[in-house]
């Protein structure tokens, strides 16, 4: 049976389209048909009551922008027929995480407070995708304001579910993105990663996710969470597609002073050049988790899930067989501080960014009578924000209070430098390790069941234990699928590299992909597709 168009890779689709073998409208229709089959009922902010069928659908989207995508598809087909270049991502359906502003679409951040907000402008990475011929097929769900690692905190319920087994979470916060791509409801997705929000759900859903170097992709039009950590990046079904998308979204932007002016290479060039002579490290600090006992504060240690460690070590062997030099025992001693530091820095920045939602200029306003302005603020924020934004704002305000600033915020910014130092030492060309990349598990466990962790904000944060150090250090990270656990859930492995080394990471990822092309697990489909 021929593979449906919606399950093809972006690079394959662009080739077929440019050769005149398929039209953008056909690709769009195939994807809409898949959405019709697996998506389930549209989410809403009304009080959630479970309905029959909710538990076996994906629920990735908040808004499907069929009209916009169809106009774009028709324009692409017209261009191609006229002999013009329709663009590097011509006819490729892209789902945009609903944390990006897209002109004339509801841009909700999965929060009631922005439910009515229709963006008057388009975020730079989305604008670049659309200019490259991509079809904006919709806005996908996420944890409210990206605050979570499971998608369960979205105000738009039913929340996304994992296509590999809908009883499990897709991860988060870009869980709508990774679920949509895994289920063929989009070919690519634009996500964001502040502590692992692209890589962790990519690992949970068996897709590829890249967090670029901080500043590699513009944040203009991204609804801010933690401005010093937020990174937009690609979600794809294979490494080449992630590279193709990086080509389009990366680069300088005069709307964002932190978007680096470092030249953007062609990330697909040399991607199949192999890893001969590359030095790839393994660190014990990414195989055993060290964290303070939640009760006593005593330091505890736990290994990552054995199957995940095995998959990571097996990947190292595969890469060694392709000529890479594997360097064992690379010390990354400050890894374990990633979460505590994140609790401080991200909350302070979140509190600052979320003060703007006050019921006055845009977004939700308390509809009843109030006597004065402060009452309007309080009522609007009470009704508009869910629990997680409230929690983050309160925490951010507490730890940035004048009396605690030294103990918490300033100290955290210094510990962040220590975390960065670990990576600088590992990647130092004149250093003892001289690594091109570090190979680690992406997550401590595979996806957990819905309802298992949600509600416990400390526990949930630990899902990002192995991904958050890259955000503190600003370096790029790539998560790629590396098999399935015994329970059928995907395993992800992570490659971390020096600043602006995305091309190298993609090349290593592609090498792993090619060397495991025949692996049995690659032919297994997510449950929601196998059933159909």
């Amino acid at each position: 049976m021929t593979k449906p168009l919606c399950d093809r890779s972006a690079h394959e689709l662009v080739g077929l389209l440019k050769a005149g073998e398929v039209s953008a409208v056909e690709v769009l229709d195939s994807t809409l048909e898949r959405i019709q089959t697996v998506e389930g009922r549209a989410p809403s902010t009304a009080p959630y009551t479970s309905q029959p069928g909710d538990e076996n659908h994906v629920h990735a989207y908040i808004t499907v922008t069929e009209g916009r995508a169809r106009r774009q598809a028709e324009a692409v087909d017209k261009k191609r027929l006229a002999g013009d270049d329709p663009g590097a991502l011509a006819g490729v359906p892209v789902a945009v995480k609903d944390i990006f502003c897209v002109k004339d679409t509801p841009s909700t951040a999965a929060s009631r407070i922005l439910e009515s907000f229709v963006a008057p402008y388009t975020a730079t990475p989305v604008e670049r995708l659309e200019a490259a011929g991509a079809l904006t097929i919709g806005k996908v769900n996420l944890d409210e304001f990206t605050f979570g690692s499971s998608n369960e905190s979205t105000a738009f319920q039913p929340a996304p579910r994992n296509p590999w087994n809908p009883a499990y979470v897709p991860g988060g916060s870009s869980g709508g993105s990774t679920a949509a791509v895994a289920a063929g409801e989009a070919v690519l997705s634009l996500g964001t990663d502040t502590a692992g929000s692209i890589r962790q759900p990519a690992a949970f859903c068996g897709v590829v996710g890249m967090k670029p170097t901080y500043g590699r992709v513009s944040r203009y039009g991204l609804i801010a969470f933690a401005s010093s950590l937020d990174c937009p990046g690609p979600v794809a079904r294979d490494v080449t597609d992630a590279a193709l998308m990086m080509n389009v979204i990366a680069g300088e932007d005069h709307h964002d002073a932190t978007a680096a002016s470092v030249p953007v290479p062609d990330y697909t060039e040399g991607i199949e050049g192999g890893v001969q002579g590359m030095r790839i490290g393994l660190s014990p600090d990414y195989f055993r988790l060290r964290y303070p006992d939640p009760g006593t504060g005593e330091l505890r240690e736990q290994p990552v899930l054995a199957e995940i460690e095995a998959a990571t070590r097996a990947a190292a062997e595969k890469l060694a067989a392709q000529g890479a030099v594997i360097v064992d025992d690379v010390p990354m001693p400050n890894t374990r501080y990633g979460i505590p530091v994140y609790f401080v820095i991200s909350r302070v920045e979140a509190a600052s960014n979320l003060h703007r939602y006050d019921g006055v200029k845009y977004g939700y306003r308390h509809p009843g009578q109030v006597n004065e302005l402060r009452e309007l603020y309080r009522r609007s924020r009470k009704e508009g924000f869910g629990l997680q934004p409230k929690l983050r704002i309160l925490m951010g305000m507490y730890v940035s209070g004048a009396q605690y600033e030294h103990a918490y915020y300033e100290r955290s910014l210094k510990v962040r430098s220590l975390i960065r130092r670990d990576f600088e030492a590992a990647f130092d060309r004149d250093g003892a390790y001289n690594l091109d990349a570090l190979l680690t598990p992406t997550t401590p466990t595979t996806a957990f069941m819905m309802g298992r962790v949600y509600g416990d904000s400390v526990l949930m944060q630990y899902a990002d234990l192995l991904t958050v150090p890259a955000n503190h250090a600003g370096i790029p990270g790539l998560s790629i699928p590396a098999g399935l656990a015994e329970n059928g859930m995907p395993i992800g492995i992570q490659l971390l590299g020096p600043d602006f080394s995305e091309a190298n990471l993609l090349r290593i990822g592609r090498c792993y992909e090619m060397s495991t092309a025949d692996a049995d697990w690659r032919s297994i489909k997510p449950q929601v597709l196998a059933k159909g």
Partner: protein
Amino acid sequence: MATSCFWEVMVVKKTHGSTQEEITRPVFDHLVDLAAFELDEDEAEYLRGELNGQLKAIAELEAIHIPADIAIATHGVPYPMENRPALRKDAVHSYPDSEAILEQAPEIEDRYIVVPDIPNEELS
């Protein structure tokens, strides 16, 4: 090791944790006021419990030895001049579609955003 073993261990430990609280109810109420929130009672107790849990999780920050030469990092990635885009010219551009922005306001009258009375506050 079962898939969710890590989570289970964490849950068990937490249940047996100490009950000492850093954020007492008066401290919490002050924060809620500063944050311009109103909370239902069950919401307030949940949030206060989580805040105290998070503070325990970050307590170890105090014990980290930080060498004297360590500076704060406001971003992980350094920003040397050669990586920075040139600054824009300090010029005024009128926004082409101000109506689209005004349309987002919950209540408008003659292109002004309507708000309730702004209370007078005595500044000390």
